[in-house]
């Protein structure tokens, strides 16, 4: 890509060169802690989820250290149970679920819509505080001895037998759930009611469609987790038998209710990733996304089908073979809209002049790794194979290909792609490419061996294992080291770029979208005048023409 022509791309924000923006509009700690500006709230979220990401990462690293040798020599099995539980809880509830929606979505979505803010700015700030309160419970649990139930809190172990902080942890997860419900609700209302004139549904960037689908899932699934955790807390406190078979309860009902949320939660985590990928593919191929409507509706289809597949987590929990067959079939169906997205991104790449900026490297990583994660998901959705590999490292590898290879890759793609918009500075390209490479290599070295070791029978959630699995586990731990370097590096060079990075123009990538029509960083109200949208999504010539005309006028 020739960046000189891109820097000259026209933009409509007349004050693009002006000094005032959302970052220097006000100063002081309170101007951040009491802000109602969606962009500042996004920054608050970015800092908090990054902290939780590294906390969760430390737990993962300690696990990988333990698994370097077959003997359980570094930690006791009890400590190991706490490590994988805390890793899962921190990463899922406090990083993956809020990461893309609450950081990138919060910042970019209102600007993409040409709105001044989200529909409910105070509720947006409240969401962050609720998240922090929930997170505080998580931190208290970590400091005071942890929790050992696994992130799924399966009953009756969690309610009757575990002597760790189950109540505090579930309370933290319960509270954090309301944070994401309010964020999802805010996004939905904003998308419905705050679009700029001319911005019809089919002119929306695909990011918005995918975030819309995510928000629907957040809003309809999270309350079911909330009530499930209420029942769990009631059972633990009163010692009654809601889910404990010894007291007349049904533990499988707990699993149904838990996964009614937690399977859709997988789509809460991956759909925003897909949102970022669509934007980056369009920007770095300089093309319209192939089959726009298919990609848009596939997000809704994933959201809908995602509600109908939860019991594939229960194939060996004692559900009837008939319902298992139905859920197996429905699970296969989710592959259709997911594949539509992958094929359409690939078709967009076909014969495009692709520029290999860092976000695009992450995008290619995402497409490949998500495909592997998705296809192995089909293996697990097939009844016979699931019985064989259930609770093995095959499952661990599968969902890490989706969550880490998919969502975290997309998050990093998005952070790099919108970095110039958020901070007004370019990140250093060479270092960023190096870290993208480290992440890709480290990721595959960490998790591909886990497919193999799981397939030959290594069970998950044990601190010791049979000696014949050691070679693959050593590879996995080595990969985790490289992956860690790949994650720490961006902290350094992105931090460096805040002060020393090259100043970014309003549209450093020459991309299409309202966020590239305002200055970098944007002014507090995003646009001084509400923009009017006259172009179709990703229509480069029409967008540039509209920008020129507005600039001339």
């Amino acid at each position, binding site marked *: 890509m020739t960046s000189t022509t891109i820097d000259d791309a026209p933009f409509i924000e007349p004050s693009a060169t002006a000094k005032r923006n959302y970052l220097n509009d006000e100063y002081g700690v309170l101007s951040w802690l009491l802000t109602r500006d969606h962009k500042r709230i996004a920054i608050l979220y970015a800092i908090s989820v990054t902290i939780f990401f590294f906390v969760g990462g430390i737990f993962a690293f300690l696990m990988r250290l333990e698994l370097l040798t077959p003997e359980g020599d570094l930690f006791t099995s009890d400590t190991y149970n706490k490590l994988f539980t805390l890793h899962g809880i921190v990463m899922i509830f406090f990083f993956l679920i809020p990461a893309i929606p609450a950081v990138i979505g919060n910042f970019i979505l209102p600007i993409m819509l040409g709105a001044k803010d989200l529909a409910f700015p105070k509720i947006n700030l409240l969401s962050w505080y609720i998240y922090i309160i929930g997170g505080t419970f998580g931190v208290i649990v970590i400091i005071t001895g942890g929790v050992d139930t696994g992130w799924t809190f399966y009953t009756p172990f969690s309610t009757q037998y575990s002597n760790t902080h189950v109540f505090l942890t579930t309370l933290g997860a319960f509270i954090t759930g309301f944070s994401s419900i309010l964020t999802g609700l805010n996004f939905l209302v904003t998308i419905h009611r705050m679009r700029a004139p001319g911005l019809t549904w089919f002119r929306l960037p695909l990011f918005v469609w995918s975030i819309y689908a995510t928000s629907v899932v957040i809003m309809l699934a999270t309350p079911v987790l909330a009530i499930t955790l209420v029942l769990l807390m*009631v059972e633990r406190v009163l010692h*009654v038998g809601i889910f404990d078979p010894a007291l007349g309860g049904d533990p499988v009902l707990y699993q149904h209710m838990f996964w009614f949320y937690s399977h859709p939660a997988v789509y809460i985590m991956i759909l925003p990733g897909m949102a970022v990928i669509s934007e980056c593919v369009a920007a770095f191929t300089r093309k319209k996304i192939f089959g726009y409507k298919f990609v848009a509706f596939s997000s809704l289809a994933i959201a809908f089908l995602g509600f109908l597949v939860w019991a594939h987590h229960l194939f060996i929990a004692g559900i009837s073979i008939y319902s298992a067959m139905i859920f197996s079939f429905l699970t296969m169906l989710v592959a259709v809209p997911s594949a539509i997205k992958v094929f359409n991104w690939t078709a967009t790449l076909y014969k495009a002049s692709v520029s290999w900026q860092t976000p695009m490297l992450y995008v290619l990583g995402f497409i490949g790794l998500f495909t592997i994660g998705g296809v192995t998901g089909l293996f697990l959705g097939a009844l016979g194979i699931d019985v064989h590999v259930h609770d093995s490292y095959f499952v661990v590898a599968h969902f890490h290909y989706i969550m880490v290879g998919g969502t975290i890759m997309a998050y990093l793609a998005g952070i790099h792609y919108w970095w110039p918009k958020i901070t007004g500075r370019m990140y250093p390209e060479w270092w960023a490419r190096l870290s993208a490479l480290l992440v890709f290599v480290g990721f595959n070295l960490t998790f591909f061996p886990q497919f193999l070791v799981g397939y030959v029978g290594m069970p998950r959630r044990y601190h010791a294992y049979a000696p014949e699995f050691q070679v693959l586990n050593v590879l996995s731990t080595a990969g985790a080291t490289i992956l860690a370097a790949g994650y720490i590096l961006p902290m350094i060079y992105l931090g460096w770029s805040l002060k020393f990075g090259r100043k970014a123009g309003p549209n450093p990538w020459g991309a299409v979208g309202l966020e590239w029509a305002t200055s970098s960083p944007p002014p507090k109200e995003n646009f001084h005048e509400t923009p009017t949208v006259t172009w179709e999504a990703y229509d480069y010539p029409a967008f540039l023409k509209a920008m020129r005309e507005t600039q001339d006028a």
Partner: protein
Amino acid sequence: MRNPTLHELQHPGTSDDAHAHHHPFLQHHFEDLGQQHEASTLGMWFFVAQEILFFGGIFMAYSVYRHMYPEAWSAGAHHQNWKIGLFNTIVLIGSSLTMALAVWGAQGAKRKLTTVMLVLTLLLGMTFVGVKGFEYREHIHEGLFPGSHFTYVDHAHPELTRGVELFMVFYFTMTGLHALHMIIGAGLLIWFIKRAWRGDFGPEYYSPVEIMGLYWHFVDIVWIFLFPLLYLIH
């Protein structure tokens, strides 16, 4: 020159009126009061949608155990006083009426009527919660509170005791969550009574009262399902 918003294109004329007054309750990020009203109403509908899923989860669990322990469920329902339940149902439906009248009053800038109706809604709501508390006291006296305080034994059918305890778990959790929603609603009502008395609401701006009404009616409807499920079906 300001560009017309989508809302203005669809509803010509609405924004000029609003902007002419610069209504004090128009938030800066909305174009006009119409857009603000639509956003807040839609927001409350979405909130109600998530509430339905929240209560839906526990209704589902209730149904599973009702199916599993029909006799115990019937025995449990016999410990409920349907007359008190009916009284509370009437109180709650009455509060829905006064709430609807408050919305009507706010739309018509009837300051006193709105305030009085909101106060009545609050009183009826608190009556409901008070009666509920009285019922709870009775149950606890009978030893029906689940857990270590559960001393009740069904002498005719001792094998049903565990099931009755489970019924009471659902009884207390469901009515407790419902009462919590009532108390939150009461807190909001106190705030809106103050605002209504101050004269904040009128034909241009009544969204807070209207979405309060949506919430209140929703909480009432939950009770309309709870009453037969916990008191009437044997």
